[in-house]
């Protein structure tokens, strides 16, 4: 039996739930969103990831109806939503500050949206009970928001925004106020709830780990533009720009010039007199074109002797060792001054480390370990 992979973005017949078309948003002279085009599909868990001020929150607020685009159109299920006010949209939002109504109980907070639709009392009770069960808040229904903990407040906010069964749920940094342990647990809970309810989630976050964990696809944003939209795996393993490679995780960037070596192979000259690095690339470079080789530290091996048969191997000396418990990252300085980070998993308890500061070592990686980028 083959498992069907959830990838509506690869299916040309699939209609997107949300379609940003050449959307621009300006605040006075400041351009928050710059000619942005993006499709988000039904049942997706879509993450907008970027540093603060990159425009991700503005995009979310345009979806909720609190901002209108200066140019371009936003379609929800095929309809232009520019003229629809926030209270008439089948979109609900979970706010970063949770925005729970302090004067209402947990129950009344969750029931708030349903009461606006004049839902009959019996249906309303059933729906709120269902939401309380989904978020495991049954015991707290009568409490006021200040009488529950931060994690519980977060769940109330989620329950309230899901109660109206929106087509689209927006989550603005939903886990920002939780501590690290609780955040991890809640990430899985969110994915679980998203799967159970089948709602399309769009999450805004600046935490790349969070985006990678929860999302089906990630849009990496910078200064109002989308740099890359892809699955977490592709974003990590096949970034299409130095910005994306650098923003997600740790990376070594070696700049140089490319020379085609045939069969999808290129030689990267990175320093005068040093042997060029070999790198496989789908992207084609002309002879002498400037390029950047991006290699993740965990794909670089570190050894005492030159490993036989390695595609790329250079010698250097250990400059720094960052011990992270499960991993150690070695900063190795190459003769030209370039620093290469190599990461090893600490599979054995550290009683005696093979390398220490100032040791001469070899770093090596395969031709397919890195990605060759033009910008």
């Amino acid at each position, binding site marked *: 039996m083959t498992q069907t992979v959830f990838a509506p973005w690869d299916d040309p017949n699939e209609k997107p739930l949300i379609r940003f078309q050449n959307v621009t948003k300006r605040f006075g002279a400041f351009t928050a969103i710059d000619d942005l085009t993006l499709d988000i599909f039904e049942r997706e868990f879509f993450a907008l990831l970027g540093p603060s001020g990159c425009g991700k929150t503005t995009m979310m607020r345009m979806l909720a109806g609190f901002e209108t685009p200066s140019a371009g159109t936003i379609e929800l299920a095929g309809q232009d939503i520019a003229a629809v006010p926030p209270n008439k949209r089948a979109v609900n*939002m979970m706010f970063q500050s949770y925005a729970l109504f302090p004067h209402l109980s947990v129950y009344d907070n969750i029931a708030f*949206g349903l009461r606006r639709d004049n839902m009959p009392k019996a249906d309303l009770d059933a729906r709120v009970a269902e939401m309380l069960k989904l978020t495991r808040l049954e015991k707290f229904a009568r409490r006021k928001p200040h009488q529950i*903990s931060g994690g519980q407040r977060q769940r109330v906010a989620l329950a309230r925004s899901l109660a109206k069964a929106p087509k689209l749920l927006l989550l603005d940094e939903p886990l920002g106020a939780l501590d690290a342990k609780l955040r991890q647990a809640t990430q899985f809970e969110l994915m679980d709830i998203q799967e159970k309810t089948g709602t399309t989630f769009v999450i805004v976050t600046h935490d790349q780990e969070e985006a990678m964990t929860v999302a089906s696809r990630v849009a990496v944003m910078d200064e109002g533009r989308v740099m890359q939209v892809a699955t977490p795996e592709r974003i990590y393993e096949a970034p299409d720009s130095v910005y994306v490679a650098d923003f997600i995780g740790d990376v070594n960037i070696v700049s140089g010039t490319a020379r085609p070596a045939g069969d999808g192979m290129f030689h990267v000259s990175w320093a005068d007199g040093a042997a060029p690095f070999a790198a496989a690339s789908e992207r084609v470079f002309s002879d002498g074109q400037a390029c950047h080789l991006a290699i993740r530290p965990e794909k670089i091996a570190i050894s005492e002797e030159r490993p036989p048969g390695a595609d790329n191997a250079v010698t250097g000396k250990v400059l720094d060792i960052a011990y992270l418990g499960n991993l150690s990252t070695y900063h190795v300085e190459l003769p030209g001054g370039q620093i290469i980070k190599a990461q090893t998993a600490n599979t054995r308890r550290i009683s005696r480390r093979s390398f220490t500061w100032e040791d001469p070592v070899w770093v090596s990686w395969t031709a397919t370990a890195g990605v060759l980028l033009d910008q």
Partner: protein
Amino acid sequence: MMRLSWFNVTSLTLGFAFLYLPMVILIIYSFNESKLVTVWAGFSTKWYGELLRNEAFLDAAWVTIKVAVLSSTFATVLGTMAAYVLVRGGRFLGRTVFSGMIYAPLVMPEVITGLSLLLLFIGIGLDRGVITIVLAHTTFSMCYVSVVVSSRLMTFDRSLEEAALDLGCSSFDAFRLVTLPIIAPAVISGWLLAFTLSLDDLVIASFTAGPAATTLPIKIFSAVRLGVSPEINALSTIMIGIVTIGVISASLVSKRNSLRQQREEQAAARAA
């Protein structure tokens, strides 16, 4: 407990003596047997009895309370609306001018406010009485209400209103169901402030009051010009008593509420 130095003790004593000595003397003399205010002739409560039989004072007190309740209610409605528009209305044409103008009456000499209102009432031919005093008091106390309410609105988390809109409220419903209940304490203290300002006011009331209606401050002021009578001491003592009870109970209630809130928050944090 920290011990106070002699300097702090002295300044504390001086400060409080300065504030409260006159009132203490007034209260003591309100229980004076003698008709002469400055001569002590033994303890008596007879002036309180006299006061209750004085129709003119009772009428004035009734007018004062009526005016204070009506004007502070109108001022609260208008002041809250003004504050909401000025804080939330975004940038509309002339917003700065409007917000400056709403605060101007705070620094305007009362005599000028009173005189201009008097001219207006004469101009439109409105007979001076309870209505004119209510209008005048509403005018000047709504600025105070709007200052109190807008300072609360400034710190109000705007996402609460957005959440209400997001969940299907119209703007008016969002105000009625979310904003107003949350800013209610500020609205109430605005009302109380307007109420005390109205009780207190002599200058503006004396411009806008007519022969048909006199407020207590006007009555006391005109009575004092004929000489301070022990009756007025008694009346003042009653007013001091009411104010003291009001202030103490309000602070006790708010202290108890904040303690309870703190306890519940701690309990929630522990349970997590």
